[in-house]
């Protein structure tokens, strides 16, 4: 059993410190937004979580390509880890978006292109996980997972384009679905600092979680191997 890598410990601690710093920056350092008030603070974390979701989506697709090319098991573990993390973060992003949208757009939900696309990504993740659960053979499971992650990565931007076109051809009557219209604001320098700091912190958080999850996946594979050896 290999020990937890030292750099992972370092990353754990750094992430924790940065996280506290980010919270402090957002709640203490940044000025209150004039029209939206408190609820605008959600924005810093909302964008950061959505960013992590996208990052996971990208990592899963790259891991998928790597798996199909090289056939090494570690890429499968990375792909699954990225999807699981991304699934949670996108969900958090959608919930935070709703919390913000309720007072600002006066509704929990609109069929805004970004919101809809985020939801579709969640559905694709759900399908990805269901697909994996339905397959016993580990190699086939990895291959199908890789193919599906890549297909999703190609399809989602097309969906986004389609929904965007839908809105431009048929202007929406009730409210505006684009944040640039209602609920938009200009960031002050202080806000900008907090925003990018929070983006960076969450990226670090993502890397940290991914590392943990991949390590766990590798250990699980090892356990399975040992169990086979004992039973053989």
């Amino acid at each position, binding site marked *: 059993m290999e020990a937890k890598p030292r750099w992972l410990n370092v990353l754990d601690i750094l992430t924790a410190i940065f996280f506290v710093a980010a919270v402090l920056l957002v709640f203490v350092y940044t000025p209150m937004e004039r029209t939206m008030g408190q609820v605008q603070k959600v924005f810093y974390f909302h964008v950061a979580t959505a960013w992590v979701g996208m990052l996971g989506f990208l990592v899963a697709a790259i891991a998928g390509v790597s798996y199909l090319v090289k056939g090494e*098991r570690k890429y499968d573990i990375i792909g699954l880890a990225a999807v699981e993390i991304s699934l949670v973060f996108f969900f958090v992003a959608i919930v935070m978006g709703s919390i913000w949208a309720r007072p600002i757009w006066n509704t929990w939900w609109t069929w805004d292109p970004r919101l809809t696309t985020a939801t579709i990504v969640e559905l694709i993740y759900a399908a990805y996980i269901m697909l994996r659960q339905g397959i016993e053979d*580990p*190699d086939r499971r990895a291959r199908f997972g890789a193919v599906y992650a890549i297909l999703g990565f190609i399809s989602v931007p097309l969906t986004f384009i389609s929904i965007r076109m839908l809105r431009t051809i048929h202007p929406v009557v009730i409210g505006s679905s684009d944040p640039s219209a209602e609920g938009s604001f200009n960031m002050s320098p202080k806000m900008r600092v907090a925003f990018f700091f929070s983006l960076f912190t969450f990226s670090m958080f993502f890397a940290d979680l991914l590392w943990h999850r991949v390590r766990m996946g590798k250990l699980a594979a090892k356990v399975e*191997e040992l169990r*086979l050896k004992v039973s053989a």
Partner: protein
Amino acid sequence: MIRVRKLVKRFGPKIVLRSMDFDVAAGEFVALLGPNGAGKTTFLRILASLSRPALGEVRIAGYRLPDQAAAVRRRLGVVSHQPLLYGDLTAMENLRFYGRMYAIDDMERRILDVLEMVGLANRRHDLVRTFSRGMQQRLAIGRAVLHDPEVMLFDEPHTGLDQDACAMLDNVLRAVAARGRTVVMTSHDLARAADLASRFDVLSRGKIVASVQRAEMETTNNLLAFYRQAVSEPEASRG
């Protein structure tokens, strides 16, 4: 005809074949025996180009797998324990379909010859769905020999057949083997295998643990004893 060196196959963390060597000369009929889960079917699927080897060399008629798979497939006839036939097509139509896939010349005549050989000429316009298990299995052999392959692979061909059907199947198998084809057949039915094969190999724990020529065997009982010994001794030497 078949040459396998240091073949390794894994299913995830599980190693099914560990550095397996296996040779078959042209015209040999090898029965591959072994306990359940020894990797017989996996090995046959690798020879059939349906499954990729993790490591090692596999050559059939000189062509390397998996990169020269198309050339191998043209020379290979496979009968698995599933019939690989379409229930909603007639015997004739099934063979016609596979004939097109293999680009066979003078197809109609060849199909009739094959149906004659497996004893299904009078049922050629009936749906395969209505066939008994034994008839389906014989048609499956017809499908496998349609393109006149040099090498044939049989995976447990007797599974699910009654005595009469087995006897008829054996006649077809003999007819197939009599034409100088190279045959590898997996089986756990020692008595049937003893009647058909010219060589017996035992696959156990991912390797060939023993091999014996038919000429060295006197009776079926000897084969049984040979098999028992091979399976029970982990380090049994070859041949």
